[in-house]
């Protein structure tokens, strides 16, 4: 499961709306909790794919180096990443899988239709190596405060949004 605060969830979706019709991208910082990833901070990144920003994203490695170092100093870990799919469903593509290398981390995708964030899904990159990696649908829990009680059923998020429901 991916645990997000309402603030983090909103920030991801707002970022996708702001960069529309281009893809946004960013890093999720937090902690690994047994089988879950708990996000306490989202970090916006620039999309370096200026040649095709409407359907490609890439985070500059030097930006990742800086984020990884700052996360370590703050006793946080990189637990995942997010990006948007402008006018495209919130499911992973073969490109997303081919270019995903952080096994054990969450990959959040938000569909943005005509400038408005629609569906936000998360996929856990599973496997043991590049040769057998795969994306698995991952439940998302959104809470105003992570300690708050929320609906934890798979495919349902709190507030007025539905997340992790690719077909809705």
């Amino acid at each position, binding site marked *: 499961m991916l645990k997000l605060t309402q603030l983090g969830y909103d920030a991801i979706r707002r970022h996708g709306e702001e960069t529309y019709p281009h*893809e946004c*991208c960013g*890093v999720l910082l937090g902690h*690994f909790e047994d089988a879950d990833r708990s996000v306490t901070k989202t970090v916006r990144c620039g999309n370096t*794919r200026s040649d*095709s920003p409407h*359907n*490609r*994203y*890439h*985070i500059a*490695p*030097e930006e*990742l*180096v*800086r984020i*990884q*170092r700052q996360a*370590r100093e703050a006793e946080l*870990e*990189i*637990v995942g*990443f997010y*990006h948007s*799919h*402008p006018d*495209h469903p919130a499911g*992973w*593509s*073969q*490109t*997303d899988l081919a*270019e*995903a*290398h*952080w*096994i*054990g*981390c969450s*990959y959040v995708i938000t569909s943005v239709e005509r400038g408005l964030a629609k569906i936000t899904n998360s996929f856990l990159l599973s496997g043991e*190596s*590049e040769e057998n990696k795969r994306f698995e649908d991952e439940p998302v829990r959104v809470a105003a405060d992570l300690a708050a009680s929320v609906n934890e059923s798979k495919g349902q998020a709190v507030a007025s949004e539905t997340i992790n429901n690719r077909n809705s």
Partner: protein
Amino acid sequence: MKILIPTPLRLYAGKQDTVDVKATTVGDALVQLTSTHPDLKKHLYTDDGKLRAFVNVYLNDEDVRYLAEKENTRVKDGDHLSIIPSIAGGNIW
């Protein structure tokens, strides 16, 4: 010097986020890392011994691929070597 290990590779580095090595060059540091933690090798290198294309190695804030001496660049105490798998994707193949 310290080598910063990204989260997906910590499982193969004794669950540590950093590994300390006493090395003279970047290449020496990577050899020491994979000698101490041999399970890391297949995740960092191809079968023919080349660094995988998606694995970025930064000496402090510099991409080792673009340093004049590349992996032969000398290192000193206090340097940080960051291993960063790339992050990219997109909505079509």
